[in-house]
């Protein structure tokens, strides 16, 4: 970072050191290796100086000073090792120990407890012999328990919940020694369950019930790996005892998440140890799947494949892989399809939406990755969020946004389908400087409104105006055709709001635009991404430092899937399959010709299966039957196949149809790399051995290739990574920080001169205005904070927070249909009906209703599916439904 910082010089115990201005004495001391004991201080939090543990002597100050709140100044002389200081520390410890129950033998924190460590270090005891105050232990929730007798009242939990999470679910209750941490009255904790309070508590006062009494810290084996629940790519430490998953946490400052986690990361780890795991290969015999040996299953698949290939050729095959797999697996999968099988018919779950963002970036700025990083988000002065509901979809990117707003004072602009309401889950629009609440079907209209305001407000960058005269003219013309009245009708947003937003955006020096899944997966998502890039380009932000476009990935390795070439039209390195140089390089590397025929994408493969063209399908960790709406006919199409091979953790709707199911290892059981949404490649490390007879997907693919006679053999995942690095030079630095690509000026030039023309006419028109008829709401499928795809529905902890599906409704709508939280509701339209439970939430805008897609299989029938003509992304996110209370 090039922020020039002034420094000050001071001495700590006589050792001179120079630190940036504003550094706290406690941090300055840490730099010279002096660890000043502390409880309430935490680098993420504003100093509160309440524990008084960190006292030090500062020359020329009469009293001892708290080093956690004292800023280092020029010439300051600090002493931490004098008798006075030592005695002060010891005495504060004595006070803190006074009311402490000293129940270390049954305390989960034992062995990693600050109070224990300092007491040991100072051989501190307490002369306290009076009556200790006693608090009842509280079952705060099914997941968190408090033991307030152990609390040292440093308020780190409360401050974290407020300052970092912006959730404010914890509160110090009462006064003086009787203060205890609670939520609200006698109610159980209702919050984001980020686990932050458990992690940040320096003692054992707030503990996770998932792993209570199960271990002593020193018994645990640790593996630093990456969470597999979303595209944020948080570093986690999985702690295990033998083969058992005990706990997950993240060390302060670790990874891109800097040690912060969300509920999925902190409490979701038990998915892997669910008893329903498929633990041995299965072969369908006489219509039922029965257990088999690896040998048998591999043989069976190889044999059938060979016969089908002989009869129908390689184009009779297709492959589908999950964006949850490692880069190594994704890479090997596409190589397997292209080389061993010989087809480009392959796709990954990036097709559900992420491809829309990537394609748009490729077209406008010539990169397939963000040109910004999380650090740029934190340092941005203007952030625009469109259709993200970021707290629930990408919580850690959300924390970066919160940090930018709360700590750095960034201006937040939001175009979201949420109302700024205070609830148990943080709501990003509460932090907005300007928020417009728009239904997902009208995100496009809102972005057009913003573009129109940019053009009319004369916010167009002069260089862009010069270099792209035609481009600017064309866009200006296009937006001028849109009438403010129509925009207002579509979005419900006034012209003034757009004008203000445009002005803020144009004023920004470091502007980052984040596009979320709700946008990326909604109809026209691709076009809207292009328009957002237009917005950046026109205002001169696209190429400016610290500015950029950041589409958020839903699955942890959607980005990797694209970069590994696990999508029909791309080769590794996200190179187009039609790119002759790339093809040539790849066939040299693989020593094999690449298939020529254009590959079929997700929905196309299903259509081809339906039509009998595709006869064999390899599916790795994907569940199209459960994910796609029934109108697509996935189930029937797959039923027609001669060979359906699934590599899976669980017997999903899709795997249940398979001829052969291979038991796959979960992310905590394998090694490799994941690439997060910002393009950072991180190491995945196994914490336990594969459960049962399962194997990592790459091993299965490799074994299949051997059995099929076109062997792709590797000793371990590292060897695959080596090959990846050979074909994509320098792939993944694996360093601590991502190195984002720069915008490709040539690509921008091409876009401004020619590229924009192709679809300008279609993406600069207002999306259809849904006429909402009496008695209906617009139903949307959404991700909730507590789940990720369907994998998390196998996680004990997450199921305890959110055990099943429910319909989120606005209070006014709920009142209209006389529905209350907990009531059963029937949703219906011409395509079918679905019954679920209602939950009334202020944050849901009137006229909309959300259904978490993790539990929505049976509701999918209500949704129409439209496939984007350019990116082939299937979109089935909104439907108009009638709502009725039922019993």
């Amino acid at each position, binding site marked *: 970072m090039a922020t020039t910082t002034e420094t000050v010089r001071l001495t700590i115990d006589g050792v001179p050191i120079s630190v940036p201005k504003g550094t706290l004495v406690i941090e300055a001391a840490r730099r010279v290796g002096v660890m000043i004991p502390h409880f309430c201080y935490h680098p993420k939090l504003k100093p509160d*100086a309440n524990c*008084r543990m960190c*006292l030090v002597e500062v020359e020329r100050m009469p009293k001892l000073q708290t080093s956690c709140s004292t800023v280092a100044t020029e010439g300051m002389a600090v002493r931490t090792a004098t008798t006075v200081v030592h005695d002060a520390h010891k005495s504060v410890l004595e006070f803190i120990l006074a009311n402490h129950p000293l129940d270390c033998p049954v305390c989960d924190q034992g062995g990693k407890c600050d109070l224990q460590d300092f007491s040991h270090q100072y051989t501190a005891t307490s002369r306290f012999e009076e009556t200790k105050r006693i608090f009842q232990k509280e079952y705060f929730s099914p997941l968190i328990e408090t033991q307030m007798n152990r609390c040292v009242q440093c308020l780190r939990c409360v401050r974290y919940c407020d300052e970092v999470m912006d959730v404010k679910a914890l509160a110090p209750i009462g006064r*003086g*020694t009787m203060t205890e941490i609670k939520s609200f009255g006698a109610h159980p904790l209702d919050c984001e369950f980020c686990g932050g309070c458990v992690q940040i508590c320096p003692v054992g006062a707030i503990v996770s019930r998932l792993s209570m009494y199960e271990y002593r810290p020193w018994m645990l084996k640790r593996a630093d790996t990456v969470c597999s629940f979303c595209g944020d790519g948080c570093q986690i430490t999985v702690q295990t005892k033998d083969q058992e998953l005990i706990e997950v946490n993240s060390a302060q400052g670790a990874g891109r998440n800097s040690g912060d986690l969300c509920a999925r990361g902190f409490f979701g780890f038990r998915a892997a140890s669910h008893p329903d795991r498929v633990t041995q290969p299965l072969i369908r015999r006489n219509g039922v799947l029965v257990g088999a040996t690896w040998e048998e299953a591999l043989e069976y698949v190889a044999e059938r494949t060979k016969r089908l290939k002989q009869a129908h050729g390689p184009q009779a095959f297709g492959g589908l892989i999950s964006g949850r797999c490692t880069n190594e697996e994704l890479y090997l999968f596409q190589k397997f399809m292209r080389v061993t099988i010989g087809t480009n018919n392959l796709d990954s779950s990036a097709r559900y939406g992420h491809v829309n963002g990537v394609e748009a970036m490729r077209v406008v700025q010539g990169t397939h990755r963000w040109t910004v990083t999380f650090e740029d988000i934190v340092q941005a002065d203007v952030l625009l969020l469109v259709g993200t509901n970021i707290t629930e979809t990408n919580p850690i990117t959300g924390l970066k946004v919160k940090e930018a707003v709360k700590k750095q004072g960034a201006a937040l602009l939001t175009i979201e389908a949420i109302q700024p309401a205070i609830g148990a889950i943080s709501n990003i629009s509460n932090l907005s400087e300007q928020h417009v609440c728009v239904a997902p079907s009208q995100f496009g209209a809102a972005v057009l409104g913003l573009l129109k305001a940019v053009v009319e407000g004369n916010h167009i960058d002069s260089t862009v105006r010069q270099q792209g005269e035609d481009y600017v003219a064309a866009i200006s013309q296009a937006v001028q055709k849109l009438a403010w009245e129509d925009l207002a009708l579509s979005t419900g947003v006034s012209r003034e709001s757009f004008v203000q937003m445009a002005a803020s955006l144009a004023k920004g020096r470091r502007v980052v635009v984040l596009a979320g899944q709700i946008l990326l997966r909604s109809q026209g998502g691709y076009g809207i991404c292009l328009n957002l890039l237009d917005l950046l380009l026109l205002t001169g932000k696209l190429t400016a430092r610290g500015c950029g476009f950041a589409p958020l990935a839903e699955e942890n390795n959607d980005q990797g899937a694209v970069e590994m070439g696990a999508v029909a039209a791309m080769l590794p390195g996200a190179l187009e399959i039609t790119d002759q140089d790339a093809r040539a390089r790849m066939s040299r590397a693989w020593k094999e010709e690449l298939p020529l025929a254009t590959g079929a994408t997700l929905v196309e493969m299903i259509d081809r299966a339906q039509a009998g063209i595709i006869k064999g399908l390899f599916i790795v960790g994907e569940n199209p039957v459960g994910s796609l709406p029934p109108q697509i006919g996935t189930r029937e199409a797959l039923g027609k196949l001669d060979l359906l091979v699934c590599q899976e953790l669980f017997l999903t709707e899709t795997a249940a149809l398979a001829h052969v199911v291979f038991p796959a290892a979960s992310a905590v059981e394998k090694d490799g790399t994941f690439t997060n949404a910002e393009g950072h490649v991180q190491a995945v490390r196994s914490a336990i051995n594969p459960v049962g007879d399962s194997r990592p997907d790459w091993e299965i693919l490799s074994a299949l290739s051997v059995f099929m006679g076109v062997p792709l053999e590797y000793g371990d995942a590292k060897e695959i990574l080596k090959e990846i690095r050979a074909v994509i030079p320098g792939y993944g630095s694996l360093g601590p920080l991502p190195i984002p690509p720069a915008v490709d000026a040539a690509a921008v030039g091409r876009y401004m001169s020619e590229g924009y023309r192709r679809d300008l006419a279609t993406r600069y028109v207002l999306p259809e205005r849904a006429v909402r008829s009496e008695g209906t709401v617009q139903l949307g499928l959404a991700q909730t904070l507590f789940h990720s795809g369907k994998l998390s529905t196998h996680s004990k902890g997450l199921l305890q927070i959110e055990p099943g599906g429910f319909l989120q409704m606005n209070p006014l709508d709920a009142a209209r249909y006389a529905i209350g939280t907990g009531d059963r509701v029937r949703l219906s339209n011409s395509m079918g009906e679905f019954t679920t439970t209602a939950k009334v939430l202020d944050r849901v805008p009137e006229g909309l209703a959300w259904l978490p897609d993790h539990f929505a299989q049976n509701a999918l029938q209500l949704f129409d599916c439209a496939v984007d003509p350019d990116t082939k992304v299937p979109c089935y996110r909104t439907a108009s439904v009638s709502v009725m209370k039922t019993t």
Partner: protein
Amino acid sequence: MPKHELILLKNMMQPGYTGSLQDYERAGGYQALRKVVGKAQPAEVTAMVMKSGLRGRGGAGFPTGVKWGFLPKGYVGPRYLCCNADESEPGTFKDRQLIERDPHQILEGILLACYAIGAETAYIYIRGEFVLGAKILEQAIAEARTAGYIGANILGAGITANVWVHRGAGAYICGEETALLESLEGKRGLPRVKPPFPATHGLYNKPTVVNNVETLANLPHIVGRGPEWFASIGSPPKSTGTRVFCVSGHVKRPGNYEVPMGVTFRELIYEQAGGLRSDKLLKAFIPGGASAPFLTPNHLDVKLDFESVAAAGSMLGSGGVTVMEEGTDMVWAALRLMEFFYHESCGKCSPCREGSSWLVQTMRRIVAKRGRMEDLETLVDLCKNIEGRTVCAFGDASVAPIMSTLKYWRPEYVALIQEAEAANLIKLEPAGARH
């Protein structure tokens, strides 16, 4: 009848004085405000206050003009004045009288301060129990608003000054200025870490001045009659003006007495307050509210000014003088105050939070004749370990009663413990010692 000139209590001593706007104006009220608003520069008002030598009457005795001078110069944006009417220091009841009997005197002081520091909004943070006081202030504000002293464009000078009454809700700590600000912001009244000071980061993080009721009530007189006049009263140069001392305890005529600073305790206790209740001997007195260390009859000739009381090992504090006659149990007295501090510790700092509960329990044990000799050492240690180790001055205050009673009346502690030991001669061997 007082032999000194009264300043603050003068109006209310007039027979029939009701404290209404009419009465106040008739007694010359709001002339000071008229004299300066729109006519003198705000800085001139600050200069007058500085020159008067006025020091805060809330407890710490910080020079008022100097405090105002800490506000950032040239700062654009709102600034605030908070009138500290939280009066909760045991032994103190002067602000209550000033508020209920002559509210306009305070309002005029507030308006002068607002003018001087450029604050358009003032909040009077009044302790929640003063329901009547809050009503009287609200009414006075309404009167002053109608008369054009409060509101937009006061006295037609194009200056805005709004004054609002904000009631506390029962927490002594909210008298501490930063806790007051937190409380005023709708939060728990926990003192803030300083620096930054309210002058730069106060209410809503904006430049703010917090002044005590009595401090502010002096302003109309300083501005009206000139700083030189004020500076000549009391014991200049360091303790100028009068103070309203609250005399309580074992005296014949407890109550509020306004005297120039510098009179002796003897004068205050024996002349003003009529001497001891049943003509017993004086045993002890607290010179400045519960936070001030106890003094003994040997200190009767100490002068009631900031420096003299400090030199005697205590402090002038809030002006609450509590008198105890011969026969008062000093350990019990210290415990009573310790109970107060235990009840009121906000709980932020470990030493104060844990220490106050520890001290109170040990003291209760000693008073209940279950003490041990070691307890005395522990008490002293704990007090020393609380003192100077906390965010606010509450920690220091909370140990004053025990420290000072142990200093002067240690034999009383010892006697209680000896009694306890005599009654409990059989000592149990620890289980581990039996073979």
